[in-house]
């Protein structure tokens, strides 16, 4: 059989093209993404924080660190509590030492005395991952190591994350950090390992004042859903368009 070089090249090209086209029709998924796409979609986990009830005891932060194996004394945490103290002169003092883990028992802020008669208002704001509907962190992950489950929780695949930190940069809420032991991106998961087994998250379970609650937005009879539907709630930083799913009662304009 005679086959010129030209023919050979031509045919090789055709064959490559022919095999590449059908291949490109498949979307490439990381192993964890595949797993996440099969799940219960009658559930959409949401969180409700009632800032009026929070006293800044820090028990939620403690519980979270223990439950999720975040080295206790290192300055990183999946959830934290911020203290806001607003003054008559318009000044505001904000702090969250060790994420509020040890409770706010001191009247000083960053070592400064705050004159009590000058304070207009003061309150605590617990924070955790917003499990955004349009998560910026998922959008930017180059390898699909961070992904959203069908019930709305954003997770990180510790076996696939390359540790580039792009998701940390992309989250407008500063939720993410590198796990000091696993060396991959780490974040609040709403205690996914617990809630999928019918338990509450560690922080909800440990809050003595019911300031934190978790619920299923797709269940109209869920008490959390009822509050979100019927009462005036707000979310943090909605201007970033990430559609956060942690709802707050009693949010203030000073909250960052």
């Amino acid at each position, binding site marked *: 059989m005679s086959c010129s070089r030209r023919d050979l090249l031509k045919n090789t090209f055709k064959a490559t093209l022919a095999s590449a086209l059908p291949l490109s029709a498949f979307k490439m998924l990381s192993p964890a993404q595949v797993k996440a796409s099969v799940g219960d979609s009658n559930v959409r986990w949401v969180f409700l924080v009632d800032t009026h009830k929070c006293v800044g005891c820090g028990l939620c932060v403690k519980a979270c660190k223990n439950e999720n194996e975040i080295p206790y004394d290192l*300055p990183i945490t999946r959830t934290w509590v911020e203290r806001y103290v607003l003054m008559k002169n318009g000044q505001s003092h904000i702090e969250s030492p060790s994420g509020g883990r040890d409770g706010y028992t001191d009247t000083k802020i960053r070592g400064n005395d705050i004159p009590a008669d000058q304070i207009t208002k003061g309150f605590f704001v617990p924070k955790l991952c917003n499990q955004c509907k349009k998560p910026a962190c998922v959008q930017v*992950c180059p390898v699909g190591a961070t992904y959203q489950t069908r019930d709305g929780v954003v997770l990180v695949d510790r076996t696939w994350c390359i540790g580039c930190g792009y998701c940390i940069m992309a989250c407008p809420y500063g939720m993410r950090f590198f796990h000091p032991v696993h*060396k991959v991106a780490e974040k609040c998961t709403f205690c996914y390992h617990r809630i999928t087994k019918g338990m509450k998250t560690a922080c909800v379970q440990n809050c003595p004042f019911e300031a934190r609650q978790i619920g299923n937005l797709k269940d109209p009879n869920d008490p959390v859903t009822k509050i979100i539907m019927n009462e005036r709630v707000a979310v943090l930083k909605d201007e970033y368009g990430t559609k956060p799913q942690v709802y707050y009662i009693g949010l203030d304009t000073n909250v*960052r």
Partner: protein
Amino acid sequence: MSVEAIVAQGAEHLGVHGLEWTSKELFTYPNEFIYWSIQIVMYPYMTGLVAGAFVLSSLYHVFGQQDLKNMARFSLVFSLALLPVAMMPLQLHLQQPFRGMNVMFTPHFTSAIAAFGIVFSTYAVIVLSEIWFVYRQYFVEQVIALKGREGIKDRFMYYLYIVLTLGAFDTSDKAIAKDKKAVKILAAIGIPVACFLHGYAGFIFGSVKANALWMSPLMPVIFIMSAIVSGIALCMLTYIIIMEWKKWGTIIAKGKGDKSVHVIAGAELDVITKTSRYLLGFLIAAITLELLDLIFRGYTAMKSWDILRSVMYGKDFMNIFVLQYTLGNLVPFILLLMPRLTIKRVFVALVLVLFGVFMMRWNVVIGGQAFSLSFAGYMHYHMPIIPHSLETFKEGLFGALTVAATPFVLFWIINKVTPSFEYK
């Protein structure tokens, strides 16, 4: 081993990434640190140099800018030497460097970094094939010249060149004309790809909506312009150094008054003067865009402007206005514009230009993390100088210097196979 056990051991690797070199002021969220440090400054800097070097060589091949003829070959080979180095900083900053390949296995295309591998390899293929077409004739000539010679080195080079010809030994006029055409086409495709490669680096930052300083549609264009500026400057600088080296070699061998010394010096100044005009043009474009961005931010004064202003006009004033704009842009601009250009003056201007572009990258990457996402606090970066662990080496001064030195070593090696200097 459980996490508790590792913590109990107090193992050295148990560092919070970023804690080492970040200091905080006022209110920042607990998890905020300078996560993207010096290597991420190096990354756009190095890609910029690659793109710039390539664009410079294409100006000759595509637009037939005859005045760039001597520069073109050199900058093409130099951009090949820079190419692998654009990947290096990314690799060095990963927390899981051995998983870097995952980007190729499961590229997640909504991410700006995901296509990097693809854009980068496309670009590599273009540069490699263009070099092949430029040097094919030379390869064939070498094969003929080295044929039958003894000696290990000659034998090695002989076989190397045989492989490099890829079996194409035809050096008829027709074949050479075809080569030339191929070079032209490749260079033409290469320009948009080079710009894309770098504009893309700008997009990686410009698209981070959480970061008030980075988010700007101008970011990719600003990056491209400053990339070309830095690429041209580095090519010119390396060219000067190598030509001076040759000149001194000739002076030592033949004496100062020899004719060939003047030939080299004349050719050098000629090439440099011509190239510096292009440098000036791109420099103006880069500065205009950066100022536009700055003015626009000040004028629209969005929520983030208060903290941005306090960073730019306060904490980072020295870095931005003194080091970047004045020393890195204005001074070299004046130096290059002043009449009766000399090599010494150009040399100083080029070093300053390169420094200015570096400061621009620094001010974007580090400056973008100088304030908290809460807009109520600041972070400061203290670059590790003396390394005491792998991490402080990688993400410290010496890691950055390693990255900066690599292209010159590579160029030295590549230049042995594809010599890129002629001063006839």
